[in-house]
């Protein structure tokens, strides 16, 4: 029997659940899951790894059925793990109806509206525009290789 150096898979899942705090400035509002939102951004935006929080700069204008700050992300499925990967995916598609986009957009920012709108991540796709219609953003399969967030 030999020991194996590894980060515990349970630890990865617990990171997604906010169990571990190595820093000293963590303030939790409660023990429930946080609320997350999804905002759409114009192709002129420059979101990426350096994005730390939601900003209205280069977000779609709050016209044509779009509300500033975007839509609520449905989070009915807790983080899970498989193999040595922990993962999480919103549990439903994100939908905008009666929607006319103020311009061409190609990115969605998911952010934590409970924790001062801190950024979770930016996901990009081919540039799109919507005219008097519906935009459905369907999530990938919630597994270790496709989930929206994977801690491998």
């Amino acid at each position, binding site marked *: 029997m030999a020991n194996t150096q590894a980060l515990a898979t349970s630890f990865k899942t617990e990171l997604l659940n906010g169990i571990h705090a190595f820093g000293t400035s963590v303030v939790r509002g409660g023990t429930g899951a946080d609320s997350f939102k999804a905002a759409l951004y114009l192709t002129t935006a420059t979101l990426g790894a350096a994005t730390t929080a939601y900003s209205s700069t280069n977000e779609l204008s709050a016209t044509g059925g779009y509300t500033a700050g975007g839509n609520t992300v449905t989070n009915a499925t807790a983080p899970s793990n498989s193999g040595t990967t922990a993962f999480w995916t919103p549990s439903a598609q994100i939908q905008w109806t009666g929607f006319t986009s103020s311009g061409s957009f190609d990115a969605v920012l998911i952010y934590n509206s409970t924790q001062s709108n801190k950024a979770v991540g930016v*996901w990009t796709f081919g540039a799109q525009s919507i005219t008097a219609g519906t935009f459905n953003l369907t999530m990938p399969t919630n597994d270790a290789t496709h989930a929206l967030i994977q801690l491998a």
Partner: protein
Amino acid sequence: MTLINVVIGGETKYLPEVRQVEVLSEGQLYTVNNYQVPYNEGGKLVVMKAEELTEKLVSYEDDNEIWTAIEYWEDNELRHRSLHMQLKKGLPIAGRQGNIG
């Protein structure tokens, strides 16, 4: 394809998804599959007119996404565009542990 141009709560909307619409007459309520939709979304649903538009389906797929758009054109004017976008994979974060000593 007949696209129904309606007013819901004072706002003009287009309903291309509704494929079986019985237009009673201009300015009256309409029914969808025998289900009357008179007072939804806080407004009276009134058929203003029916227009003949050209329907166009556009789809795309690569390693990251798959999407399908449905468009309705009146001559060279885009009157409606809806899109179903599916992200195929998310973002991986590599958790690596350092060595001791």
